[in-house]
């Protein structure tokens, strides 16, 4: 009985228990003696009912007291409190931002019901490799994969497209996904209004489902929009539904869904690959099982159709994983860096609190001797550090909210998620978790240290000792700070060098002062080549006449924007060995406008029309590959269904971006297109080089386009420079954040060194004063303090460099050839760290040298 009651009393704070526990037990014994056996059970139950709420209440009272005390003592030490809150805010903020984005991109379930079973299916090499959708499926292969595999509950197909949306406001270019009836229902999201496509799609009149965003911008959010008609590429479509706001598929730019149904004709050509599969796995089928199943199906198809499917496998991946693996490395690198910063934050704050505890040793010892239990004091210290961290955490969430928008370039556009994570409960949870970690990290060590360390000693020693052990712990912490900041700095330095290296890559064209915009001509309205030529001629002659315009041209796609468009090219005698080239149709003046050097021969000309001999301009690498020893001009080769004669050679362009190898390029005159074919290769991008303010030309260009065709929308207006910059945007975003973290880290480490040295100097002021009084040279004293600082720094620099080397190897895919052990970077950072150490030691050293023996001795 008594033991049970004693256990019950453990619910109270130890201080209360120590004070009143014995009394309460005595009381319980007396009552216990007064009742019988049955009464005892009642007594115990009564005690439980009584003591639990009281215990909770007492805890709250203690907490309130501690909070009051913390508030008082922190307002007294305002500079300390402010530093602590600020440092915590940076640590928590950086981590909350980095982890919110990483969680959003890498972990968070996609915004569909049961997202884990959603998968994507494309064609790919039989042997695997690569990421995402390697190549689209042909309708026939899609049909056979669907019929022959047993892994899918549902499988649907879609293809991405774009169309000119006309009617109700400015003509607009919108991204479209044509989807089979299975697709929208299998994702499990119901439309906000109306319905989605039914199974008998082919019987219906042309219908569309709109995204929430388009519905808002186009119909002003009118619920009666369902049933109205929109015009896509000149044809009317009835709006049958509107999807909810957070619905994105297959990527977040798609705003219209149109129905897709295959005809018998679509199934004829297995090499005509243009659809992608999306499906839901059958319950109980794992991803790996499904992958094996699909590989088996692919093998059977290869056997059945060796001509077309010999090399064709399934590229099969989770809907979640449709992004470049680079994003993962970028994001994980960022998370690692922010964790380093958090470590640094904790080390710094713990060190500050230790210094504070050392400074308060007397106060605490006095309180302890006045009867405050050790537990009570530790609890008080913990409350204090938690108050600090909590304030810092709240400020940190604000920091994170401000920082997250800076990281949006790290959210891959290929995933069906919003452009940036919102500040939702999950993000707040992440912030709270980091605040808690910080609170524990900075509070517990000093508190335990304090809990074990004081008593009469602190009083007896007259507060001079300061405790060697505690300072050793602080030295460790400062060493850790230096190590972490050195590691961060070197990583940032390596990435900076990598970015420089990337940016110094010659794109092959001159992006400065080139304005680009898109006018995609809708089919079937523009089926006639003459009509297209008339449009191009009208626009180009109008634009070229504008003041300041040096040249203008049309092309199928801009380098670094259109990275695909790859076509097999064969030379006579090598028909069995096609070579891939990136194919573009252009109008005359394209090379001059983009500043691509013409090496031999001539540009395409207005005279190169459909009824003239078919010609081509090829890039240098194309010529070198096919005619290494011969004159390329005058040679013929086969591409895009026709034989073409080389009339010119230009320099290579980085079509796929600065960091990736690109295929050789082939440029063809816009009119020399086979009848009815290659719609996707229509020139749509207008490029304009101007001497003056290119963006200022835009209103005039709009007028010119509207005069040529009033229903023609203009989209994707940008400077070519921006396109090239965008190629390295994700890298630079990560780098900026990392560099900021590294600089903060360096400053924190500097503050840490300064704090520790200042403290030791003040603790050793007597000793130093005695030395000075005995005739020690000030230079010697200065050396004493400085060497302390440098020892601290070296103690951290060595592990820091090693850590950076490990980090550099982990992110070598981002380093673009820069060595993880790049001596220049390491030397620069070590120098910087040493400079920082000297700067941090400066004030304490000066104070030591200027110590007046008389004052120092009088202090006690």
């Amino acid at each position, binding site marked *: 009985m008594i033991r049970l009651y004693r256990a019950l009393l453990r619910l109270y704070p130890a201080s209360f228990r120590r004070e009143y526990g014995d009394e309460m037990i005595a009381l319980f014994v*007396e009552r216990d003696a007064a009742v019988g056996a049955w009464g005892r059970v009642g007594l115990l139950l009564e005690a439980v009912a009584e003591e639990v709420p009281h215990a909770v209440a007492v805890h709250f009272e203690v907490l309130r007291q501690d909070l009051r005390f913390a508030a008082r003592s922190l307002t007294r030490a305002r500079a300390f409190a402010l530093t602590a809150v600020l440092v915590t805010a940076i640590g928590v903020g950086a981590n909350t931002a980095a982890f919110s984005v990483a969680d959003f991109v890498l972990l968070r379930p996609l915004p569909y019901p049961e997202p884990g079973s959603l998968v994507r299916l494309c064609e790919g090499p039989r042997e695997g490799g690569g990421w995402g959708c390697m190549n689209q499926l042909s309708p026939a292969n899609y049909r056979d994969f669907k019929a022959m595999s047993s892994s899918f509950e549902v499988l649907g197909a879609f293809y991405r497209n774009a169309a000119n949306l006309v009617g109700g406001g400015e003509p607009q270019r919108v991204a479209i996904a044509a989807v089979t009836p299975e697709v929208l229902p299998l994702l499990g999201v119901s439309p906000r209004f109306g319905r989605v496509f039914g199974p008998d799609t082919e019987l219906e009149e042309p219908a569309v489902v709109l995204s929430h965003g388009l519905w808002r911008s186009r119909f002003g959010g009118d619920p009666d929009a369902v049933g109205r008609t929109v015009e896509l590429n000149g044809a009317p479509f009835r709006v049958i539904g509107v999807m909810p706001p957070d619905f994105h598929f297959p990527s977040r730019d798609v705003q219209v869904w149109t129905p897709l149904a295959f005809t018998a004709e679509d199934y004829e050509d297995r090499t005509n690959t243009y659809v992608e599969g999306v499906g839901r796995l059958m319950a109980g089928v794992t991803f790996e099982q499904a992958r094996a199943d699909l590989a088996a199906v692919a093998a059977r198809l290869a056997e059945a159709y060796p001509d077309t499917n010999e090399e064709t496998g399934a590229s099969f991946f989770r809907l979640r994983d449709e992004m470049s693996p680079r994003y993962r490395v970028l994001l994980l690198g960022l998370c690692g860096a922010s964790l380093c910063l958090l470590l640094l934050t904790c080390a710094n704050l713990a060190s500050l609190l230790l210094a504070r505890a050392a400074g308060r040793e007397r106060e605490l010892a006095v309180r302890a001797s006045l009867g405050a239990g050790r537990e009570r004091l530790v609890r008080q210290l913990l409350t204090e550090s938690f108050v600090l961290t909590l304030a810092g955490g709240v400020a940190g969430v604000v920091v994170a909210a401000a920082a997250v928008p800076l990281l949006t370039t790290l959210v891959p556009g290929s995933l069906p998620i919003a452009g940036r994570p919102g500040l939702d409960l999950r993000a707040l949870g992440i912030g709270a978790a980091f605040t808690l970690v910080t609170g524990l990290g900075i509070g517990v060590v000093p508190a335990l240290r304090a809990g074990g360390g004081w008593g009469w000693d602190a009083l007896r020693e007259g507060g001079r000792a300061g405790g060697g052990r505690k300072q050793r712990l602080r030295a460790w912490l400062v060493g850790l700070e230096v190590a972490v900041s050195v590691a961060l700095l070197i990583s940032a330095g390596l990435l900076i060098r990598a970015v420089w290296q990337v940016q110094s890559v010659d794109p092959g064209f001159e992006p400065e002062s080139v304005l680009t915009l898109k006018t995609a001509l809708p089919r079937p309205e523009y089926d006639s080549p003459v009509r297209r030529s008339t449009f191009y001629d009208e626009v180009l002659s109008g634009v070229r006449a504008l003041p300041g315009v040096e040249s203008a041209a049309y092309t199928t796609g801009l380098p670094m924007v259109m990275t695909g468009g790859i076509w097999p090219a064969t030379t006579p005698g090598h028909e069995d060995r096609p070579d891939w080239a990136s194919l573009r149709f252009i109008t005359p003046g394209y090379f001059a406008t983009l500043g691509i050097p013409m090496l031999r021969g001539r540009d395409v000309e207005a005279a190169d029309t459909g009824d003239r001999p078919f010609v081509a301009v090829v890039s240098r690498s194309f010529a070198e590959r096919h005619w290494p020893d011969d004159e390329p001009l005058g040679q013929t080769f086969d591409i895009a269904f026709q034989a073409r004669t080389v009339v010119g050679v230009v320099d290579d362009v980085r079509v796929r971006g600065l960091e990736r190898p690109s295929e050789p390029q082939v440029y063809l005159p816009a009119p020399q297109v086979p009848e009815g074919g290659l719609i996707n290769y229509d020139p749509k991008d207008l490029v304009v080089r101007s001497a003056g303010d290119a963006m200022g030309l835009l209103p005039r260009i709009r007028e010119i386009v509207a005069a040529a065709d009033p229903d023609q929308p203009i989209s994707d207006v940008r400077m070519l420079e921006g396109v090239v910059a965008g190629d390295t945007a994700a890298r630079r975003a990560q780098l900026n954040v990392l560099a900021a973290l590294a600089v903060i880290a360096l400053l924190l480490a500097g503050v840490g060194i300064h704090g520790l040295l200042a403290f030791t100097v003040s603790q050793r002021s007597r000793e130093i004063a005695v030395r000075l009084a005995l005739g020690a040279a000030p230079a010697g004293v200065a050396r004493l303090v400085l060497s302390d600082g440098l020892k601290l720094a070296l103690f951290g620099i060595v592990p820091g460099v090693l850590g950076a080397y490990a980090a550099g190897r982990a992110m070598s895919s981002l380093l673009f050839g820069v060595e993880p052990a790049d001596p220049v970077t390491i030397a620069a950072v070590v120098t910087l760290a040493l400079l920082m150490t000297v700067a941090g030691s400066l004030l304490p050293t000066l104070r030591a040298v200027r110590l007046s023996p008389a004052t120092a001795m009088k202090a006690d």
Partner: protein
Amino acid sequence: MDFDPDDVEDLLPLPPATFHILLALCAGDRHGYGIIQDVEERTDGAVRLSAGTLYRTIQRLLERGLIVEPRNPVGVPVDPRRRYYRITPFGTEVARAETRRLSRLVRLATGAGLAAPETP
């Protein structure tokens, strides 16, 4: 002895358990169990303080200076192993103020025709 009336007023109204404890201590120094017994007797068993209530209240009264722990308790057979409590002049003043508050309340209630004549 004069006390700042605001200090006294701040504490009113007293929770019933607190008032009972102060009443018990008005009769002399008591230890915890003594207080419980005293309260129980005084109220004919109607009020039985639990240990938690008692010691939480005692802690608060000590903090606010309404009672103290005397070094030499008087007036009762002293058990040296136990802790005794004594009401301070400030505590007495607070108890008085609470009594005045309650009597005013009773007068008001009587005026409203609520008071039933109590048979002795």
